[in-house]
């Protein structure tokens, strides 16, 4: 780490220690407010700390991990987290990409008005709009069911049935996130040189031919990066599962993050909660490393 690297001319370039002053706050924060707490968290996952053993607790080794794997809760939550993240990202990224394709068609009038109205879900704080959606989707009194009644559709248990609750979460997530995906995909679509489209049209490709032979191959890496980090973000998305359904009905809509929070703040099982958090992190790390190995998507960063 302290050996200097050879530079282009083969001369050993010296490290510039002065640069450390520029990033001193970052280093302090990394050390004291990220790695130290992280260490505590890993340590706590190996103890039996809970509200019953708040100050006097023992190291129990991997017993927490064994317990949550043995009880089957982990696999249930993990499955729900995977369903939630995959379903959401397919909906959001797919919808965002389609919308971006529609908006980047040449000669669409009024696209400014559309673009501005699509900003609304992104611009309004999510904490509030999720609670608004909770009211909209209420079974008895919610506006969505009242509106559907106009068309003779009977009331739907949006948040009251396990499968519907998960779908409702995805719909709300779609509403919240499609603007972001539409905007980033629009930006990357506009980065494709126009001449390539014209050339492909000359060669006789239709709309889908252009999409499959020009657009997608060119934007593969960008799309992979946006989608993978969207997946990671959704995996860790706390507010939708917490505010919209709070895990219910039963435990059918808990995901790892919201379940960890529930263990911490309601069940007060700190050791077990930390074990859940660590498992979640390990999953994501393995996922990102594997994906990166196949798509080399990190190269968009350097």
């Amino acid at each position, binding site marked *: 780490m302290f050996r200097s690297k050879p530079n282009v001319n083969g001369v050993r*370039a010296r*490290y*510039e*220690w*002065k*640069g*450390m*002053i*520029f*990033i001193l*706050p*970052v280093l302090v924060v*990394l050390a004291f*407010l*990220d790695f*130290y*707490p*992280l260490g*505590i*968290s890993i340590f706590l996952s190996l103890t039996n700390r809970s509200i019953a053993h708040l100050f006097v607790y023992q190291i129990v080794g991997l017993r927490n991990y064994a317990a949550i794997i043995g009880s089957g809760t982990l696999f249930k939550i993990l499955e729900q987290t995977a369903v939630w993240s995959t379903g959401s990202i397919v909906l959001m990224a797919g919808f965002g990409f389609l*919308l971006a394709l*529609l908006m980047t068609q040449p000669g*669409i009038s009024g696209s400014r008005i*559309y673009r*501005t*109205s699509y*900003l*609304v*879900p992104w*611009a*309004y*704080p*999510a904490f*509030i*709009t999720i*609670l*608004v*959606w909770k*009211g*909209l989707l*209420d079974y*008895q*009194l919610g*506006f969505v069911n009242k509106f559907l009644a*106009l068309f003779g559709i009977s009331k739907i248990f949006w948040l009251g049935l396990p499968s519907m609750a998960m779908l409702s979460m995805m719909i709300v997530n779609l509403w919240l996130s499609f*603007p972001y995906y539409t*905007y980033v995909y629009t930006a990357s679509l506009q980065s494709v040189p126009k001449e390539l489209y014209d050339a492909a049209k000359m060669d006789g490709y239709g709309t889908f031919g252009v999409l499959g032979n020009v657009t997608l191959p060119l934007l593969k890496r*960008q799309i992979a*990066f946006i989608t993978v980090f969207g997946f990671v973000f959704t995996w*860790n998305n*706390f507010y939708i599962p917490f505010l919209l359904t709070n895990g219910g009905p039963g435990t059918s809509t808990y995901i790892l993050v919201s379940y960890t*929070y529930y263990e*911490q*703040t309601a069940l007060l099982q700190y050791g077990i*909660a*930390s074990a859940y*958090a660590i498992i979640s992190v390990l999953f*994501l*790390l393995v996922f*990102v490393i594997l994906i990166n190995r196949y798509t080399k998507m990190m190269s968009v960063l350097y």
Partner: protein
Amino acid sequence: MINNVTESGLQRRADLISARKNAYFRRVRKIKRIITHLVLILVAMFAVFPIYYIIVNSLSPLATLASVSVTSMLPILSRISFGNYQALFVFQHGVLLRTWLTNTLIYAGTSSLLGIALSITSGIGLSRFRIPGRKAILYMLLILSTFPFVIMVIPFYDMFSTLHLTNSYIGLIIPYSASAVIFAAWMNKNYVDSIPRDFEEAAQIDGYSRTQALFRILVPMTKPVIILTLLLAFFGPYTDYALINVLVSKNSLWNMALGMYATTQISSHAINYGMFSAFAVIMGLPIFIIFIIFQKYLVSGFSITMYK
């Protein structure tokens, strides 16, 4: 018979066919365009409706969620009343709106200013200097962004209660600014990467020292990313619920998110929905307006600073 068809007759026929073909293509294009607009309009309605819904509700004399109906959604000017807003500013049902508003502004304002001030040079440090362990630091910043915040909740509670910082402003401003420092450093670095070195080098030829050149030339050039990160660092604490819920128990130190949740969400059907709507507008509209004003920085800046 082919012999009976004259040269000009053939020509006319070809013209007729191509005209029909053109008309056909024009019609297809027209239908395509109409469908496109239809889809775009439906999506726009889907996007805007919940906000329209909450604004209309906040301005009508509603009692509960039950009194929301399809007809109460129609914009009728004579029905407008500000009763919900007035009720919110009078202390009732445990609502301390003014205190929570002040607290929220203190948390979000102080921590965003502090966090961004501390990270203003970090992008330059990470982009322009050959720092030992530079790559490791960058990877750590990236990997940390995949960590869920819940992993920090208990350790933060432990740390801050040892330091007697729970139930205090400082105990919240520290973690908020810390998270701002981390993402701002990452975004700053990517932004500085996109600025050519020519500017600072020109300044150095003009007689500035390197440090002077970096501070006087490069730092002012990072204004867009400073505005972007400042806004993001403000938005985070503004609607934080999860962390403040653990670190603060006194309702005189709550922010608006905690206050809103505790006073309008705990008992679901009995709550005064008009008051919730007014709360949602008062809390959300300022952020919405700031976002629309600075959308140039937020929307395009996001893609420049997250990936290139």
